[in-house]
């Protein structure tokens, strides 16, 4: 499986035509304790750059922008009762939603792990 990263600190893990999306450990650490996550509804069509989710920490709310375009096929309902999962396992059980990609070439515009690591180190 291929994982790509956006400059907005989302990870995008491709499995066939479907990508699972979440926020990176760097983003989760920066946000602090997550207390609420608002996710897109299943079936919604999203375009790259759309504001698709909101993650609220104790201190502030932050938008999550779609790193890719497509149709939302699933959202992580478990985050409703356990938003802290985003801090505990941002790259695992703390995933946000899944998208059936409409344009797989959008992944080419995202960073691979090494590039993302270098990106974070410059921040």
């Amino acid at each position, binding site marked *: 499986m291929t994982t790509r990263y956006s400059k907005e600190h989302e990870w995008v893990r491709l499995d066939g035509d479907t990508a699972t999306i979440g926020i990176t450990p760097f983003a989760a650490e920066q946000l*602090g304790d997550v207390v609420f996550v608002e996710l897109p509804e299943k079936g919604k069509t999203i375009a790259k750059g759309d504001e698709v989710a909101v993650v609220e920490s*104790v*201190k502030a*709310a932050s938008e999550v922008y779609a790193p890719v375009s497509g149709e939302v096929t699933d959202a992580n309902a478990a985050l409703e009762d356990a938003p802290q999962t985003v*801090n505990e396992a941002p790259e695992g059980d703390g995933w946000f939603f899944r998208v059936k990609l409409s344009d797989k070439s959008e992944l080419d515009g995202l960073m691979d792990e090494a590039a993302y690591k270098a990106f974070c180190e410059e921040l």
Partner: protein
Amino acid sequence: MATDISDLKRTPLFELHQELGGRIVPFAGYAMPVQYDGIIGEHHWTRDRAGLFDVSHMGQRILKGPHHETTAKALERLTPGDFQGLKPGRQRYTFLLLDNGGIVDDFMAARLAGEEDEGRLFMVFNASRKEIDDDYVRERLPDGVTLEAVEDRALLALQGPAAAEVLSGLCSEVADLTFMQAARAEIRLGDGRSAKVHLSRSGYTGEDGFEISVAADEAEALARAFLAHEAVKPIGLGARDSLRLEAGLPLYGHDIDETTSPVEAGLRFAIAKARRERGDFPGAGRILAELSDGPSRRLVGLKPSGRAPVREGAQILGASDAVIGEVTSGGFGPTVGGPVAMGYVDRAYADPGTELHLAGRRGAEPAEVVPLPFVPHCYHRPKSGAKQ
């Protein structure tokens, strides 16, 4: 995220905050730790054990006159508190008032008992307001009374149910202090050294605790002496805010400002009876009218029915979605286990149990007016029930 903190002022504990892994952010012109391990954990730790806060950015001030009566009268020209009647070793919460009844700043003022402290009131201004307060006070002081900014001392707050036990272990004088009492004391630092401090049994978390003024060059040793106790952890500004919000304590610049009156803000306890009778404080016209007729709006507790925090600035909607007020503080209350907020509402909507809506980023969501505080205060009040 790469905040440039080099232009910011630093407290005497700045290096300790860095060493302890504090995440440093700008706050009122200072580089301050917003959190160490995490806001929720730090919040719970303070409610369960004891949290150590650096509040050295706040403005320590001494109002100095020839004797207590003169100094107290000078402060009474600016506030609605009874300072002539303030006994040695006691502290009061008060506020500087404008002639329109608005609040310039809210603060504590303590009268220490020692002979060397005669004629002095020790005050702690909000960091964001201290220069404004200085100008405001100095322009209105009579001859013979001066306001001195204390620049060579740090201020630490030790808050939580274990605070008294921790402090008593280092300092025998504090065990008998009750809420809003103040004293000079010596705290053992280890190595046979000790720090001369003045402190009060008070704070900004709703918990029992102390605020301790210490010489800047002894602040780090004092902080380390506290942190050496297994019950004490360092706490950042993030948890300070969630703790005070749950305790229903207003934050200047958010819940109170130059447009809000103390009656609207639920601070009528700090308008002394003798002062009401004399009506001799700034803004008395508005404030006395609000005391007798009720204010047109009131600061209330708001409990959103959902799980999402509602933030400062969200509109409060009444019947027919009419805007009847605005959220002035809002966030997640870890002890409450959900979102909590405060805001001003039209008096018709101010009773607990009133249902209304809060229009934040997700659109209008239901909420209920609830009594403040959200979490009961745990102050160490005298057991006798004697009038303070």
